[in-house]
């Protein structure tokens, strides 16, 4: 184990997988000479050379399209989109090509492709660069959508994503890059895709979250503990496939749940998770499931308004109090 930031954990995962397998390469805007917009690939260009660390034009369609082509020929590209907001430019390649080629060609092709992208707001980047549209991508069968909430999971999940033969959208919340945690140093440390994980145990209320909201939920759980309420925090880690088993097992004990996401509430992750709770555990419902999410406005640029619109630790805390009628 070593203590490191999520940035380092992701960087390590990439580095180790590139060392392990020559068919792995990275491409994206500023990933090479500059070392990555978020410094995740610093030093990669000098070590692995320009053939495996490719700077691209500012053209997301070309980045994702090129990566798909490379994957079809048997390489394992890790394409970086500077932010997930730019994925909309490459939407057709992501949802119509990457998500469907294996299926539409009857399994003749594999698509061992990873698309990394940062998501989330809170850094005053304005409404078009601060979105959390993760749920949109999770809507499409054929795509795996992964988004870690801790440094250890970031490493283990990214390594699994690179080794997976399926296209994976790997979403990193930019405000989590500085979060520190213990990370296994084993070069074969893998976390399974499509498996949720209990990050904190408790018997009074289930808080379901992923990505940045896992950190917020853990802080809210500390506040709740001071009030004598023990919250269980279940980290989805993957939005597709969505693993409800730990959520349902937890809910059947607590009978109450809060689902927290940074994106908007309507048609979001909380909607899906709460619907499944009602479908799978209706007879265990003791209070309506509460969703915590971003206010339904384009995210404001003004720093105070931006924080007001984003879901906060306190929102999760209050929602949990409300569902336990505490």
């Amino acid at each position: 184990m070593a203590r490191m930031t999520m940035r380092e954990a992701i960087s390590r995962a990439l580095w180790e997988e590139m060392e392990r397998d020559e068919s792995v390469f990275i491409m994206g805007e500023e990933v090479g000479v500059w070392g990555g917009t978020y410094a995740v690939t610093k030093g990669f260009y000098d070590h692995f050379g320009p053939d495996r660390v490719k700077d691209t034009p500012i053209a997301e369609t070309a980045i994702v399209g090129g990566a798909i082509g490379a994957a079809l020929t048997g390489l394992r590209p890790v394409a970086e989109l500077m932010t997930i907001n730019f994925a909309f430019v490459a939407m057709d390649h992501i949802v119509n090509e990457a998500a469907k080629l294996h299926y539409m060609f009857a399994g003749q092709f594999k698509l061992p492709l990873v698309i990394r992208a940062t998501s989330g707001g809170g850094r005053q980047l304005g409404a078009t660069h601060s979105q959390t549209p993760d749920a949109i991508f999770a809507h499409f069968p054929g795509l795996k959508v992964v988004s870690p909430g801790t440094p250890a999971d970031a490493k283990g999940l990214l390594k699994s994503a690179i080794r997976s033969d399926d296209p994976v959208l790997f979403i990193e919340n930019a405000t989590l890059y500085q979060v520190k945690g213990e990370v296994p140093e084993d070069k074969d440390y893998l976390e399974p895709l499509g498996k949720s994980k209990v990050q904190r145990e408790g018997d009074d209320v289930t808080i379901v979250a992923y990505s940045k909201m896992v950190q917020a939920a853990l802080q809210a759980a500390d506040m709740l503990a001071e009030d004598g309420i023990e919250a269980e925090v279940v980290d989805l880690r993957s939005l597709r496939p969505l693993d409800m088993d730990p959520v349902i097992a937890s809910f059947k004990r607590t009978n109450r749940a809060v689902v927290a996401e940074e994106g908007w509430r309507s048609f979001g992750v909380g909607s899906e998770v709460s619907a499944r709770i009602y479908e799978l555990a209706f007879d265990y419902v003791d209070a309506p499931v509460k969703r915590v999410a971003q206010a339904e406005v384009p995210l404001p640029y003004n720093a105070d308004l931006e924080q007001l619109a984003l879901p906060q630790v306190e929102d999760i805390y209050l929602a949990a109090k409300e569902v336990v009628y505490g």
Partner: protein
Amino acid sequence: MAELVTMPKLGFDMAEGTLVRWVKAEGDTVEKGDVIAEIETDKATVEVESSFAGVMFKHLAEEGEDLPVNTPIAVVADEGEKPSEDEIESLVSAAGGKTKKAKAPKAEKEPESEEKKSEVEADAAPAEKDEPDVAPAGGVRSSPLARRIASDKDVDLSDVQGSGPRGRIVKKDIEAYLDSMRSEGREEEAEAVGRALQPIAFSTGEIPEDQVVAMSRLRQAISRRMQDSNQNFPHFYLTREYKTGALMQMRKDINALLPEADKVSVNDFIIKAVALALRQYPNLNARIEDDSHIRRFGQVNIGVAVAVEGGLMTVVVENADQKPIRLIGREVREMAERAREGKVRNEDIMGSTFSISNLGMFGIDEFAAIINPPEAAILAVSAVQDKPVVEDGELKVGSRMKATLSADHRVTDGAEAAEFMQVLANYLEEPMRLFL
């Protein structure tokens, strides 16, 4: 536009039903799918759901009335709509029915005062407190979990004080209620909830007098149908013993892989085996249509006899030949549970083409069943038993089960029925075939 609700036809042999209870009073709001009334047929008590949304404008029948199927029983109108007597009459006659001069509808209820919230959250999710304060059906607000516990523990929710928002009864309120019953010295009552103890009868030297008990509608129906079948259907019987060692082993292996709730029974295998064998013998999956025709059913729908209080019912696994055994097991379990609780659904008991009666769990060696009319045959299944058998000239212990086919001689003959029993042996004795 006003719509008529009619007495539903629940099963091909249902002629009339009793309106037991109105769930929706005149003036109540009705959503599509809401239960509006309870109907008793000679098979079960069934809830009638509304196919329309609107307001329960008028009841055309009273509780306790026996009504032929398709008789109009109520008028559901749009909110604010007030159809006149004439309009209702023309609706009824258009539906080919008649109604007695119905009583005048009650005056419209005063709408409950509804506080309008001036602020509307930009957020799309409606807050709970914005709902108009109208109690839900049944009059008691409670969580699904609270309702389940109350039902398990036999607690009447109207006795419980709710502590949740707007008085909603939640789990802890029921727990508190049960605790208070204990602390009030009503321990026995608290302990006894959920299980009605029968006093143990023992001889006191007194001989009880004769009792004359009324037959339930279900009992009357069984009595009528069985008499009809046994008097009018010329039954013949074929018994065969099946080797069940492989089947029992396979069931054990399969169940080792399944969660507790999904475990399959011997009967589930038999249902599948019978269904597949019937595919090869369509003449046994049939009914007498008229004096000169037999209807061979396209679907293989297996009726399974389930003992219920005061009688038995046949729940139906539709297209059993097409379904995996695990699904068959689940369906039978769910339908049987509903049947025993008197909450059977219309589709649970309709459309069987062949029936199975299994008394194996009582250790019965062998028995013959009466055909479930209008079907052509029924299979009576007895217990699986280890017994001495002779195999290759040696005495061994073998797993065996007897089954008796009762068949209608108007439809089929001994040789055909015997072949069916033989083909059934292929499936039961080499159960791998059930998965091919």
